C-alpha cells in the first residue's frame, strides 16, 4: 500500500484553498480511505469558493507558496446556490490579470472536487505537486519580499562610512 518514500531535491509548498462543503469533505474522504497523496499540500478551509479572494492567492505566493490550488463544489452543487459560479468568473479574470503581469499560471490550479471524489483530490494534488516540483521554486514574489528588506541596505552599503561596520557586513553576508 505504501508508496516508496522518495528523496527529492525540492519539496514545493502547495497551498490549497478549499470549500468546506465539497473539496474539504473530498480530501477528508481521501484520508479516511487511506489514499496516499503528497504531503506538500496545506489545506485551508473556507465556507465557499466564493469567499476566496484573489488577495489570498497573492498573499500565499508572497509568503512562500510555490503553487496554489483553489478547489470547490462542481457548478450547480454550491451549498450557497451560486458561490462557485461567481468564483469561476472572478478567477477567470484574475488568471488573465496574473498572466498579463507575468506570473506563470502553471503554478495556479483550479478544480472542482466533490465530497465523493477522494480519488480526484489525490489526482489533482499529485499532478500539481509534481508539476510545481518540476518547475522549481516560485521566486518572483519571494524575491520581491527579499528586495524590500535588503535593497535599501545594499544601496547604503556601497556608500563609505554609512553602515559599513564589519559586524553589519558580516551579518549581511550571512544572509
Amino acid at each position, binding site marked *: 500500500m505504501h508508496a516508496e518514500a522518495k528523496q527529492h531535491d525540492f519539496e514545493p509548498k502547495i497551498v490549497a484553498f478549499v470549500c468546506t462543503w465539497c473539496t474539504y469533505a473530498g480530501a477528508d474522504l481521501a484520508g479516511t480511505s487511506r489514499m496516499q497523496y503528497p504531503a506538500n499540500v496545506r489545506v485551508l478551509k473556507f465556507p465557499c469558493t466564493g469567499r476566496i*479572494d*484573489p*488577495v489570498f492567492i*497573492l*498573499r500565499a505566493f*508572497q509568503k512562500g507558496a510555490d503553487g496554489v490550488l483553489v478547489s470547490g463544489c462542481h*457548478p*450547480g452543487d454550491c451549498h450557497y446556490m*451560486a458561490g462557485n*459560479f*461567481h468564483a*469561476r*468568473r*472572478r*478567477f*477567470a*479574470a*484574475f*488568471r*488573465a*490579470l*496574473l*498572466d*498579463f*503581469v*507575468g*506570473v*506563470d499560471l502553471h503554478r495556479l*490550479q*483550479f*478544480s*472542482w472536487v466533490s465530497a465523493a471524489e477522494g480519488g480526484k483530490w489525490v489526482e*489533482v494534488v499529485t499532478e500539481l505537486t509534481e508539476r510545481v516540483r518540476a518547475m522549481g521554486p516560485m521566486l*518572483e*514574489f519571494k524575491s*520581491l*519580499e527579499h*528586495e*524590500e528588506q535588503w*535593497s535599501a541596505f545594499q544601496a547604503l552599503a556601497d556608500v563609505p562610512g554609512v553602515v559599513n561596520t564589519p559586524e553589519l557586513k558580516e551579518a549581511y553576508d550571512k544572509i
Partner: protein
Amino acid sequence: MNAKANKNQGSCIEPSYYQAVTKAIRTQAVQILKEGTVAGLVGYLPGRRKGTARPALITTPEEAEKLIFSPACVNNLSVYLTKSKKGVLKQGRIGIVAKGCDMRALAGLMGESQIKREDLFIIAVDCAGVYGSGAERSETVTEANIARKCLECSVHHPEGADFVAGSATDLSGLTPLEAEEMARIEALPQAERWAFWKEHFSRCIRCMACRQVCPFCYCEQCLCDKNRPQAVESSPRPAGNTAWHIVRAMHLAGRCGGCAECERVCPMDIPLNLLNRRMAKELKELYDYEAGLAPAEKGPLTQYREDDDQSFIK
C-alpha cells in the same frame, strides 16, 4: 448631431471648436442655474496659469459665465459625486460637465447605485480630445500631445446626456498607442512581462493618488488600508506595491470606464491604464461586457451564466 466638422487629417483640432463648446456650456449652465433646475454644477474654471483649467463647484449664474472647456480640462469630474468625497452638494440636483469618458464613469456609478440619474443634469461634451501629460499648454491639440486615451476613444459622441455641447468631431485615424503597447507586452515572454511590471511597480511610492482620483474607488475603507489581518502591505516596498496594483486592477475589472485618470495623476508614470484596459479587454472577450456604455445593474463579475467558460478548471 450635425454633420462632421473639423477633420484636419485627424491630427489637429481648431481652437475655435473649444470656444464654441465653452459658449454652449456657459449658456446651458446659466440657464439651468437661473431656472433652478440644479442647485449647483461641477465644471471647469480657468486655472491660474494660462492654458490650464481646474475643477470647480458653481452655484450662481455669474460664476457660470466663467466656465470653460479647453484641452486642459483633463479631470474626470464624476469623482466629486461619489460617496468617498461625501457629495459636493448636500441637497438638490447637481449639474456636471462630462466628456465621453467621464460619462462612462457616471453610467457605472449609476449602475452601482452610487448616484441617481434624476439627481443629475449632465452637460456632455462632444470632446475632441484633451492634453496628454507634459503637453505644452499654449499649443493646440495635435496627435503628438493628445492624451493617450483620446487616441483610441470610442465615446466622442456621448449619449444619454441632458445637453450635448459641441457637435461631432471625427478623430479617426489616430495611432492607437495603448493598444499597441498592450499587444507588445502580451507578446513578451512571461519572464519579461514580470520584469516589465516589476520595474514599474517597484517605483510606486504608494501616494494613493490613483485611488483618490478614481470614481470607482469609493469604498469607505479600502481593503488595502486594513490591518488585522493585513491583506496588502501598506508601505511602498516592492511586494506590497505589486499586490496593491494587482488588487486595484482586479477591483476595477468590469467597472473601469477607461478615463485613465489613475495614469494621469501617477507621479511615477506607471502605466496603470494598461492594466485596466487589459482587464476590460478580457471581460469583453469572455463575457461580452463593456463597462459604462449604459447604466447596468450588474457587472460581469457580479453575475454569472451557468455555461461560462471553465476550460481552465480541472
